């Protein structure tokens, strides 16, 4: 998730990503015209563009409408026709960025922005000639004149730094939460077993061996942990639905924010089971070593 961008070095070099400006007044919200884009009359010379679903939703623009598009507020720009409405891909780097997007032909954007025959970047596909990406890169950069080539994988690594940070943060928070839950579970299970001290004393007085009593205590704690974690997983699943619905609405993206995978469920159940067994064993060890009459308070 991209959060803050101050430095131009991080400005995405998107050939088709420009804030929409119209002849109408815009408001103070960054990148979001409030006054509706005014549909005009379609003219034959008018070229087609694709617009973001957000613009269509916010301003009631439909395919076939004519808009005025300018690179800078207050300038004339040119009339364009909406040929398509585009739904944004579920791109995590777009999350939390609320500006509109329009897509238009390269020459049209160059003319509109006065950038002549300039581009921010272009993609190069290598022929199947056996040359490695690295040697092609070196060759291009050796003769570079005003540009630099990067391997797609390096660009991907750089642009995924944000997610790596978020991922590390989530892992850290997750780690803390797991430790907290583990201590909590251990504590509660220990207390719950201790609560049964009278029943355990009665079993011991009835002649059950320490081993049998200890095993029954451990088994009970394990069953409680597993049942609890399964209920917790169900609850977690409901929470993921709520989280996804909330953030998809908040950030207007089809992106999935929380996923409960079988792996996570298995991890939760296994961890709970282990903790249950540890807590049960700890409590049982203490209780079976204490004489039954002491457990009864005599």
């Amino acid at each position, binding site marked *: *998730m*991209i*959060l*803050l*961008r*101050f*430095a*131009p*070095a*991080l*400005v995405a070099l998107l050939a088709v990503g420009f*804030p*929409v*400006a119209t002849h109408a*007044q*815009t408001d*103070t919200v*960054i*990148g*979001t*015209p409030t006054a509706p884009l005014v549909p005009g009359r379609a003219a034959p010379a008018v070229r087609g563009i694709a617009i973001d679903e957000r613009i269509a939703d916010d301003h009631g623009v439909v395919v076939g409408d004519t808009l005025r598009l300018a*690179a*800078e*507020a*207050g300038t004339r720009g040119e009339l364009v026709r909406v040929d398509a409405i585009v739904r944004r891909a579920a791109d995590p780097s777009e*999350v*939390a*960025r*609320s*500006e509109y997007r329009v897509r238009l032909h390269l020459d049209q954007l160059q003319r509109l922005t006065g950038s002549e025959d300039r581009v921010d970047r272009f993609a190069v596909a290598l022929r199947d000639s056996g040359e490695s990406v690295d040697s092609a890169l070196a060759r291009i950069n050796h003769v*570079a*004149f*005003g540009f630099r080539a990067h391997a797609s994988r390096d660009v991907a690594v*750089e642009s995924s*730094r*944000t997610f*790596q*940070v978020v991922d*590390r*943060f989530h892992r*850290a*928070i997750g780690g*803390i*939460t797991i*430790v*907290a*839950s583990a*201590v*909590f579970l*251990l*504590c*509660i299970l*220990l*207390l719950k077993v*201790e*609560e049964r001290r009278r029943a355990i004393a009665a079993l011991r007085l009835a002649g059950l061996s320490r081993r049998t009593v200890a095993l029954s205590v451990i088994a009970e704690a394990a069953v409680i942990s597993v049942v609890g974690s399964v209920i917790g997983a169900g609850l977690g699943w409901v929470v993921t639905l709520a989280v996804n619905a909330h*953030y998809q609405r*908040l*950030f207007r993206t089809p992106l999935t924010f929380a996923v409960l995978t079988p792996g996570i469920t298995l991890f939760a159940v296994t961890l709970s089971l282990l903790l249950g067994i540890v807590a049960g064993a700890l409590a049982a060890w203490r209780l079976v070593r204490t004489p039954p009459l002491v457990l*009864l308070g005599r």
Partner: protein
Amino acid sequence: MRATLAFASLWRHPMRTLLAIFGLAIAAALLIDMVMLATGMRASFKSLLTSRGYELRVTPRGTLPFDTEATVGNAAALVASLRAHPDIERVSPSVGTTVQIASTRTTQSGSAFALGTQPDVQGEYSVLSGRAPSATDSTLREVIANTVLLARLQVSVGDTINVSVGRSAQLRLSEVAERAVIVGEARFLYVPPGLPAISAPLRAVQSLLGEAGRDRISLAMASIRADSGGAAATSARTEAVRTWIEQTHARVTAISTETAIVQVEERLAYFRQLALILGALSLVIGVLLVTTLVSLSVNERLGELAVLRAIGVARSGILHQIMLEGLMLGFAGIAIGLGLGLITARWLNAILRDFPGLPADLDFFVWSPEAAWKSLAMLLVAATLAGAWPAWRASKVRVAQALREEAIG
């Protein structure tokens, strides 16, 4: 006496009590961290924005400062108009671009962020050594560079560099590259760590950009004249000036510190909400721990409590004593949790500060005594209330019945 009894009751099962305190400490740590995260981002961002006294930022319509490559034309007229406003004290225009830089002494070269400012009013950097470039230069002759650039190019103050836009500085083509002297070292407030940056006079950078930069700026920062009316009056005048700018200049958006914070908070809503949820969960965990522990302790001691009632201890006395147990657990847990929380906050802050593109001075977890005490008080109140239910049950113990059951049991 009650405190002695409460303490002694907790100490009767040291392992149980220590585990509960540890659990509570983790809950407290998590709560403190989440409060620091929820309030710290705002505080840190605000202090960053207001560090040089500029309350308003004027950007190309519909953009955030340096969020896109968009610029505003006719900048001189815009800046003059802003400076003529009676409530505006200072205006600092700037233009940003990416340049190629090559050292004339070493063989090092690379790209850097170049910021054109008016050195006498700029609010973008602070000089660490040397001096700011001469304000009157209209062509690139002097620059001030950040530490990252000096290190990367292996140059120092006094060295000469070649600066070019859109052409490879490696070629050292005299017709496209300007030669400039590094006159100082600076810390750039809004530049992310690890990004090489230089600053030169606005007109010099505009001329470097050629036609694309003629009389164009990326941002103008404005400070509002202070008066005796206090913060509320200044805030009202800032808003009035902001509205005036947007009404008078259709090409720009004026953002006040407050609205910038609101916008950043919108973008950071995820973290704030995550903090809120985890903080609330910590509270629930804390409450559950205390309630469970104290409930069990009460259940085990019903006979004892009945005896206390029988020998004349009032209901309120029992209530106080049991609640005191919850409070003691809370205090111990919070004391440990405070230290634990500060350590984990540093760790989490270090992780989040790795976000690409963030100013070096922005923090996510900020220690604010008020927020911390509020969260700790919240946890303490929660722990006390958590002890209240078992305490109430304990105080309602039926003396005769409990004594009878004790005698039979």
